[in-house]
């Protein structure tokens, strides 16, 4: 089955070019040119990945991102012309999983999209736990005391990566490679923002984390099981 990519971009030339490139790589594509129509399209088409331009008419890309995230865990990759920390962190905090700065190379974009959809591959049955949080890997479910915690696929991947090697300290670079699929070192802000988001969901007190611990100057590791 082909993975479906929803392109939300107001620039027709770029949208068409994206379609050509993505189809060439074996993706199904749908294009939406208006921010306000992005959420209905997500509901209707149930895409595997959303490519979202941050500068949109009708509805700001950040708001679109929040709206989608509020009802779906679909992976979102932002397209942005701004590489300022503020813009990127804002985009990530509003729910984007990854971002690509314009102008990007097609290969780079494809790599980002593939990294987001690869989780559909079959995984072996596995039960993991950090602290009082239990993770059912094949079912993509996280529970604390019988209560479900809703995580986006990316947050889930991040948590699983940490939980699989409880004693290992992960540097941000290693996490970028394992979770985001970056071959080369990239922006460690991705890791910071997503760890914050993950903590806000799985920790009892995000100020004093017990599940995802910070190792100063190095990176992160899982809390004791």
């Amino acid at each position, binding site marked *: 089955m082909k993975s479906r990519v929803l392109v939300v971009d107001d*620039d027709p*030339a*770029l949208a068409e*070019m*994206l379609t*050509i*490139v993505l189809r*060439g790589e074996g993706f199904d594509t749908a294009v939406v040119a208006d921010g306000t129509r992005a959420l209905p399209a997500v509901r209707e088409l149930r895409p595997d990945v959303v490519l979202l331009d941050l500068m949109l008419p009708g509805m700001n890309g950040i708001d679109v991102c929040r709206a989608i995230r509020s009802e779906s865990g679909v992976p979102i990759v932002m*397209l942005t*012309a*701004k*590489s*300022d*920390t503020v813009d990127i962190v804002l985009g990530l905090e509003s729910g984007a999983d990854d971002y690509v700065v*314009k*102008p*990007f*190379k*097609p*290969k780079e974009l494809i790599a980002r999209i593939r990294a987001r959809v690869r989780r559909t591959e079959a995984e072996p049955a596995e039960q993991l736990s950090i602290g009082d949080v239990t993770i059912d890997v094949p079912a993509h479910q996280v529970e604390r005391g019988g209560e479900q915690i809703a995580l986006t696929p990316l947050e889930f991947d991040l948590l699983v990566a940490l939980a699989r090697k409880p004693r290992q300290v992960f540097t941000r*670079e290693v996490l970028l490679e394992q979770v985001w699929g970056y071959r080369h*070192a990239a*922006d*460690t*802000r991705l890791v910071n923002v997503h760890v914050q988001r993950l903590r806000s969901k799985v920790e009892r007190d995000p100020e004093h984390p017990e599940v995802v611990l910070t190792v*100063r*100057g190095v990176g992160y590791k899982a809390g004791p099981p």
Partner: protein
Amino acid sequence: MTVFPLAEHARRGVAQVRQLTVELVDAFNAVWRRSLQLRVVISTLALSTTVIVVLGLVLQTQIASRVVEGKETDALLRTEAGAVLLERDLSGVDPDREGAQGEINNALDRLTNASAAADQSGTSAGEFRAVLTTSRDNTGAQVSAGPVEDVASDLRDTVAQGTLSRKYVTLTEQGVEVPTLIVGQPVRTANGELEFYLLFPLTAEQRTLGLVQSTLIVGGLVLLLLLAGIAGIVTRQVVRPVRQAAEIAERFADGHLDERMPVQGEDEVARLGESYNEMATSIQSQIRQLEEFGALQRRFTSDVSHELRTPLTTVRMAADVLHASREEMLPALRRSSELLVTELDRFEALLGDLLEISRLDAGVAELGAERVDVHGVVVRAIEAVRGFADETGTPLVLDLPTGVYAEVDPRRVERIVRNLVANAIDHGEGRPVQVVLGQDERTVAVLVRDHGVGLRPGEAALVFNRFWRAEESRARRSGGSGLGLSIAIEDARLHGGWLQAWGEIGKGAAFRLTLPRFVGGLVESSPLRLGPEERPAPAPGSAGSVPTPPVGWPMVTVPPTGTSGAGR
């Protein structure tokens, strides 16, 4: 010094006094130069003192001569009148005869009494003493009445010759000097001539003149003080607004562009204030305009860069699609698609650099500092340019210790090092490029050294200029934008660090990045040497304008490399 203690003391004392004098003179000169008010007051004082002294002298002389003239006229009149009286009284007296003395005495007494009576009726010659005497050249005994010894002899000689004459003398009476006017006249008697003198003491006149003199002095002094005061007040009126203007102008120059002078009335000072304010307003508006232009220009650069990105993305993807199927193309088309892709890379790099520099110019760039091992950052930077180094056949000689922790922005530091290494490969002519990482307690440093063409004198300061090229003809192989080093130095500044260049023709060039270990730290020295390697470690200060590491710190020098000596 112990041999002549006194002389030494004296010498020292003199020296001290001289020094003190010099200091005082200097201080006065300083005040003199700096205070217009003081200058005006002192000049006024000096000039008016001269005028008052001259005026006083003239006045005094005039008054004195008038007083004396009046006295003299009166005295002459009185003498003549006395002589007439005496001639009548003594017409029959023979001075040589016995009893003449009595006659003479009587005559004088009458004269004196008559004069006393006359004084009350109005003449003003004042009191006097009369002398009546026989001539000295008379053979007989001299007969005289009154203080004849007070009469000067030369006067007597003139009177003896039969003329009326006068003389001013100073007599001493009971130890007090009394200026006296003596008027003498011969008096004819039946039997020869007598000499008649009147002595007018000038005490009253002297007192009057003294009074006039002291009045003049006191008056002059009071006048001087008043003049000085007036000059002070008047200049103050002018100087105060000038001082105020100076203060306001200073504040304006310090950047308080809203400072204006208060304007009151319509006089010259008010006009000065008005023109000053007009000038300030004009300058202020021009500065604002320039600031706005600058901001606008930066906004524009940023907007253009952003707006260019979307079409560039489309073009880039289209080019890549073409490039991917280049195998099916004709040779000319294939080469064209390759050129398109490589030039797009360059265009992209330039756009990115342009955007970054506009961000740095606008001051919105922020330092995403975190504690990292700089080793990893440098290694990543080198890996990024490794391909380019292999292409040009440039060996990279690395001396990168691990565990060099510092609070830096890893993205920026990586970019700096990447730029420096790419630049070194670009100009290294294939000779080895050394990259050294060093540290001390307060700083970390990265040195990038090539052994290529080097820099001409003065070029080390220019390499950080935007779009600067060492030689117009020299091609850039790395396809750098020409902004790399400009961005690098701005990045270093953002860290509060240094980025310095060194180079010599034929010896290559070196770039040294020195960053504080902690955010907000100060860089005062670098653990690495910028110039060519020398052994032993040179003394501080020997490297010209380049700060050398402090003595005692471990010097991290570039180890000799297998291929060293290239270019030297």
